[in-house]
C-alpha cells in the first residue's frame, strides 16, 4: 500500500525530477567529479569543433542536396558531442539547470546559426521582400493598397517601420541574417516555458525543449510575420498554461472534470495574465493570417477539456481575428472571397498541393523532401508512443494529443498556397514534442517496468549499463538533429544568396527610373527589398511555365533590367531539369539579339539592361 502511495506521489510530481522510489540513490553515478567537468568540457569542445569546421559557402558551390554537402565532417561531429554532453547531464541525479540552459542556447546556435554563419548574406527572397514592405511603410506612413496579400496583415511590417524611423535607420537589412537564430532562440524559450507548465521543469521538460530544437526544420523562423507571431503565440500559451489552466494538462485524474478548478496564483495575477493574453491576441490579429485562429482553437480545446479558467478567452481571440479580417483585410478578400472560402472541406486539394505537388525536382530535392517527411513521421511516432505511456501512467494524455493533432484541422480549411502541411507541423510541434519527450525519457529509464512507473523487481543497472542505455537515445537525437540540419539547408542552392547577388540588385535599383521594370527569371533573388510600388519588380516564373523558351519569354515581357544569378541557375537545374549553364546560354542569346547588354557582372551575378526601347506594337506581356 505504501509502495502504491509512493508510486502515485512520483506520478503526481512527475517522473523525472526525483529518483524513482524503487531506485537506491547510492548507485546513481560513481564519478560525480568527472561528470562535473566532462559535461561543460564536451559542450565547449562541440563549440570549438563547430567553429573550426565552419567555412564560407556560396550558392554556386551547392548542389541539389543543399548545404549539407558543403559542411565539413568536423562541424558535423559537433552535434553528437553536444548531445552526448546534454544526455550525460540529464541522467545525473541532480541536473544543473544553468548548464542545461547554456547547452540549449549553444544547440540553438549550432542548428539555427549554421546558415547565417556560413553564408555571405541573408537567405530567402521572402525575407528581402519584407524589408521592402517595411521601407515602404516607413517612407509613406501607410500600406500600398491592392499590392500584396501580406499588406492586409501589416502588424509586423508597421512595427519594424516604426522602429526603423524611430532609430533613424531606414534600412533594416542588417536584421535579416541572424533573425532565424534570434527568433528560433525565442521560440525555444517559449517552448521551455510552455513545457515547464505542462510537465515539471525536470528531465522530460528539457528533452521536450531539445526535441523542438532538433526537429524544427520548417524554416519559418526567418524575418517574417509568421516567425514573430509564432513566438507571441507561444508566449500566450505559456502564460495561459501557467496561470489560467488547472489542473495541469498532463495531471493524473479523470478525463473530464465535474467543475472548474481555480488555478494557483492570486486573482490579481490571473487578471493581469488575462489582460496580457488579450494584448497578445490584439497584436496577432493584424499581423498574421493563421496564427490567431490557431491560438483561439488551442484555447478552445483547453476550455472544452474543462481546464481553462477564463472561458471567454478563446472566443475573444477568434472574434478579434475575424474582426480584423472583416475590417482590415478588405483588400485581400475583396474580389477573391471564393479563393478564401472555396477550399473549405477540400482535403484532397490541400493534400495534392501540400504533399504530392511538392515532390518535384531532381533526386537531391526529392531526398530532402523525404528527410522532411521522415522527421515529421519520427516526431509523430514518438508522440503516439508518449501518449500511450501517459495513458499507462494514468496521466491525462488525450488533451495533449488533441492539442497536437488540432492544427492539422487547417488542412480541411485551406491549402494555404501548398504550405498548409508545413504550417500544421509547426503549430503542432509545441505539444507533439511534449508527448514525444515522454517516450524518449522512458528510453532513459532503468527497465521497461519503470516506463509506466511500476516498481521493478530487478536491481538498478550498473553505471556501464546506464551509459549503454544512452547510446540509442544519443543515436536517435543525433539522427533528428542532423536530419534537421540537412532539411533546413536542403534548398540553399537556390534560396541562399551571395554578396554579388545583392550588389546586382542594388545596381538595378540605382539605375532604374520610376515606372521601369526589373525582372528575374526565377524568384530566387533578393528582389523587392527597396523601391516597392515605384519600380515594377517581378519574375518570369509564372509567365513562362517550365522556363521553356525562356529567352523568348524575356523578349516578350521586355523588362528594362534582367537579373541573372547563380541561385537562379541552380533553381532551373533542380526544379525544371534545365541543363547546366542555361543562364549563360540565356545571356548569350539575349545579347546576340541586340536588345540587351550586360551592364553588371560580378561573381556570376549579372544585370542585363535593355538597349532598344520596345515599339508601340510590342505591348508588355504580363
Amino acid at each position: 500500500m505504501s509502495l502504491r502511495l509512493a508510486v502515485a506521489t512520483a506520478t503526481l510530481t512527475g517522473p523525472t525530477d526525483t529518483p524513482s522510489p524503487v531506485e537506491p540513490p547510492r548507485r546513481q553515478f560513481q564519478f560525480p567529479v568527472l561528470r562535473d567537468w566532462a559535461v561543460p568540457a564536451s559542450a565547449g569542445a562541440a563549440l570549438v569543433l563547430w567553429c573550426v569546421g565552419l567555412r564560407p559557402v556560396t550558392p554556386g558551390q551547392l548542389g541539389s542536396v543543399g548545404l549539407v554537402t558543403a559542411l565539413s565532417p568536423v562541424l558535423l561531429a559537433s552535434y553528437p558531442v553536444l548531445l552526448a554532453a546534454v544526455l550525460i547531464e540529464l541522467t545525473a541525479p541532480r541536473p544543473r539547470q544553468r548548464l542545461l540552459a547554456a547547452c540549449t542556447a549553444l544547440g540553438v546556435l549550432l542548428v539555427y546559426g549554421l546558415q547565417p554563419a556560413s553564408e555571405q548574406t541573408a537567405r530567402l527572397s521572402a525575407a528581402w521582400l519584407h524589408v521592402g514592405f517595411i521601407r515602404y511603410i516607413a517612407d509613406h506612413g501607410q500600406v500600398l493598397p491592392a499590392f500584396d496579400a501580406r499588406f492586409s496583415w501589416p502588424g509586423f511590417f508597421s512595427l519594424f517601420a516604426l522602429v526603423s524611423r524611430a532609430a533613424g535607420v531606414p534600412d533594416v537589412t542588417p536584421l535579416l541574417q541572424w533573425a532565424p537564430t534570434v527568433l528560433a532562440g525565442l521560440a525555444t524559450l517559449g517552448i521551455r516555458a510552455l513545457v515547464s507548465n505542462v510537465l515539471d521543469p525536470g528531465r522530460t521538460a528539457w528533452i521536450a525543449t531539445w526535441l523542438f530544437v532538433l526537429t524544427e526544420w520548417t524554416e519559418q523562423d526567418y524575418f517574417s510575420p509568421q516567425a514573430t507571431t509564432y513566438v507571441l503565440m507561444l508566449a500566450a500559451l505559456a502564460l495561459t498554461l501557467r496561470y489560467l489552466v488547472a489542473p495541469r494538462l498532463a495531471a493524473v485524474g479523470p478525463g473530464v472534470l465535474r467543475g472548474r478548478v481555480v488555478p494557483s496564483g492570486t486573482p490579481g495575477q490571473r487578471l493581469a495574465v488575462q489582460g496580457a493574453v488579450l494584448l497578445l491576441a490584439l497584436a496577432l490579429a493584424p499581423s498574421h493570417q493563421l496564427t490567431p485562429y490557431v491560438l483561439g482553437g488551442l484555447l478552445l480545446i483547453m476550455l472544452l477539456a474543462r481546464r481553462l479558467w477564463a472561458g471567454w478567452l478563446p472566443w475573444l481571440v477568434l472574434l478579434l481575428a475575424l474582426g480584423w479580417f472583416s475590417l482590415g483585410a478588405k483588400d485581400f478578400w475583396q474580389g477573391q472571397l471564393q479563393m478564401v472560402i472555396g477550399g473549405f472541406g477540400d482535403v484532397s486539394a490541400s493534400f495534392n498541393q501540400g504533399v504530392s505537388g511538392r515532390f518535384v525536382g531532381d533526386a537531391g530535392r526529392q531526398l530532402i523532401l523525404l528527410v522532411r517527411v521522415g522527421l515529421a513521421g519520427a516526431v509523430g511516432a514518438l508522440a503516439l508512443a508518449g501518449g500511450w505511456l501517459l495513458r499507462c501512467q494514468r496521466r491525462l494524455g488525450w488533451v495533449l494529443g488533441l492539442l497536437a493533432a488540432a492544427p492539422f484541422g487547417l488542412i480541411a480549411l485551406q491549402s494555404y498556397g501548398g504550405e498548409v502541411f508545413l504550417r500544421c507541423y509547426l503549430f503542432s510541434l509545441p505539444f507533439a514534442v511534449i508527448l514525444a519527450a515522454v517516450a524518449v525519457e522512458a528510453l532513459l529509464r532503468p527497465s521497461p517496468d519503470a516506463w509506466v512507473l511500476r516498481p521493478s523487481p530487478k536491481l538498478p543497472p550498473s553505471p556501464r549499463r546506464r551509459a549503454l542505455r544512452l547510446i540509442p537515445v544519443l543515436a536517435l537525437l543525433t539522427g533528428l538533429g542532423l536530419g534537421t540540419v540537412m532539411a533546413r539547408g536542403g534548398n540553399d542552392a537556390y534560396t541562399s544568396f551571395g554578396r554579388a547577388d545583392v550588389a546586382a540588385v542594388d545596381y538595378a535599383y540605382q539605375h532604374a527610373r520610376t515606372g521601369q521594370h526589373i525582372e528575374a527569371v526565377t524568384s530566387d533573388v533578393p528582389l523587392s527589398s527597396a523601391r516597392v510600388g515605384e519600380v515594377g519588380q517581378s519574375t518570369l516564373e509564372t509567365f513562362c511555365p517550365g522556363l521553356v523558351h525562356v529567352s523568348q519569354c524575356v523578349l516578350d515581357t521586355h523588362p528594362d533590367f534582367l537579373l541573372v544569378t547563380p541561385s537562379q541557375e541552380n533553381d532551373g537545374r533542380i526544379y525544371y531539369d534545365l541543363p547546366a549553364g542555361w543562364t549563360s546560354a540565356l545571356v548569350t542569346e539575349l545579347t546576340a539579339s541586340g536588345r540587351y547588354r550586360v551592364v553588371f557582372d560580378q561573381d556570376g551575378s549579372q544585370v542585363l539592361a535593355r538597349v532598344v526601347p520596345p515599339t508601340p506594337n510590342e505591348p508588355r506581356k504580363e
Partner: protein
Amino acid sequence: MVDKLLVWLTVVLLVTLICTLAVRSVAVERAAGTSARFVRPPLVRRMDLAAVCLAVLLLAATVLRVVNTVV
C-alpha cells in the same frame, strides 16, 4: 455609406464586448478570491448573457460587412 456604418458598428461592438468581459473577469476573480472556487454571481450571469449577445451581433456585423462589399 452602409459600409462605413458597418465598420463603425463592428468597432463599437468589439470595444463593448472587451469592456464587458473585462468587468466580468474582475467580478469572477473577486468571487473566486473569497471562496477559492468557481462561482457565478448574478452580476456575472447577466454579463455572460450580454457578452454572448454582443458576440453574436459582432459576428453578424462582420459577415454583413463582407457580404455587403462583395455583393
